[in-house]
């Protein structure tokens, strides 16, 4: 079977998750490569989730929340914006193409945008190919020293 990109998407409860739901209810076609994870706010998106997703086999990670100014919690999406910008630098330094991480804004009404962004992103990941972790990388998240206690 041909390789298909695996994409983990962290979607905020108030905008994008509802927007993605609307896309489904409206029968708008969007790629089946997206694995959605609902979080309360894009500001809840801890960068440790991103490295964990890559370590466990994701080829791309999408973070999507409310448009700037529309955050249900006032400024959580701005936190996500800054974190994604810094996280792209970290991924670059860790040898992972920063294009494998994308941030989008999709409101609860923008089902068409959801379909468009996910299609675009899936194509980007398809061009980049599978993320092949070097042997000896943490392909499984193991109990590190810090997890004691």
């Amino acid at each position, binding site marked *: 079977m041909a390789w298909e990109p695996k994409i983990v998407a962290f979607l905020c409860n108030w905008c994008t998750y509802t927007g993605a739901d609307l896309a489904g209810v409206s029968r708008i076609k969007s790629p089946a490569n997206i694995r959605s994870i609902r979080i309360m706010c894009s500001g809840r998106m801890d960068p*440790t989730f991103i490295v964990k997703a890559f370590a466990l086999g994701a080829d791309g990670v999408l973070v999507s929340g409310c448009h700037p100014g529309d955050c249900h919690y006032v400024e959580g999406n701005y936190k996500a914006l800054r974190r994604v910008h810094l996280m792209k630098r970290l991924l670059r330094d860790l*040898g992972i193409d920063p294009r494998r991480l994308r941030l989008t804004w999709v409101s609860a009404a923008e089902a068409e945008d959801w379909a468009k962004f996910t299609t675009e992103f899936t194509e980007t990941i398809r061009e980049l190919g599978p993320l092949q972790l070097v042997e000896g990388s943490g392909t499984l998240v193991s109990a*590190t020293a810090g997890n004691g206690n």
Partner: protein
Amino acid sequence: MAEKPKLAMYWAAACGGCEISILDIEEHLLDVDAAFDLAFFPCIADFKTKDVEAMPDKSITVCLFNGAIRNSENEYMAKLMRQKSVVLVAYGSCAAEGCIPGLANFYDKKSIFDFAYKESPSTVNPEGKVPVPRTQMPEGEIEIPEFWDTVKTLNQVVDVDYYIPGCPPQSDQAWAVIETVVDILQNGKELPPAGTVLGAGNKTCCDECPRERKEKKIKKFVRPYEIIPDPDTCLMEQGLVCCGPATRDGCGAKCVKAGIPCRGCYGVPAGVSDQGAKMVAALASVIDSEDPEEIERIIDGIVDPAGTFYRFSLAASTLRRVQLESLRPAAAASQEK
């Protein structure tokens, strides 16, 4: 006289600072001597590997193992010490999290050898020779350990009972742990559960930091040589990249008290899986901008984010090492066929 419990301390890929931290317990060394027989401690006395190999299994009560696992000899010694010891402790940041030797995981064996033996300005090596594990000499075959692509932590090679973080662990903390061990041995108390981090706290460096914290809003990052920091205000609020929020407490916040930002040597706090990603969370949150271009300009001021945030824990991080996409794009592309 009853035989005393045996203590060992071994160094793998390490600098020797961990040994110094033990010797720095000063007069308490006499208490250590009273409580233990030294079974193996190459830094301070002339023990040989064959002495350890000859010991019965589990005959060493406590082994403090410091240093990361960088080559085949380190791994052999880790397995040997595990076999001979009842309690194996990852002592110090290298054994626990890879520490500075673990930063080599930003490269691989080939790029390290190319630079160290061929390209560095001080190298003269016209024949391009690099170390190989086995060499034929007139006297016979000689062998050196095999160098690996990836530096590992102790617990990626053998089971580890306890962890003592720090680069090096603070001597007072080291002594407190030894004192507890002596108490357990002499009074028959129960050992803490395996996997416990000893000699450190369960919070972050910020919890020990006496500096005053207000609202953090950073417009510009600065490096320590660029400013004389205010003695009472949070260093991060002054624009310094301080790893305190993503670092375990236990050191007494010595660096930050002296005006030097936390470098993160006590490693990940309890419950955190990845120190670098956690630093991204902490630092990005306080950048004072909502404009993507300005954010990019501000984070341009953070020199070497991954090397700074993972300075002590790359080998123990979620991804453990750099991936090939940046190191050798061509090699990665050819593998994808």
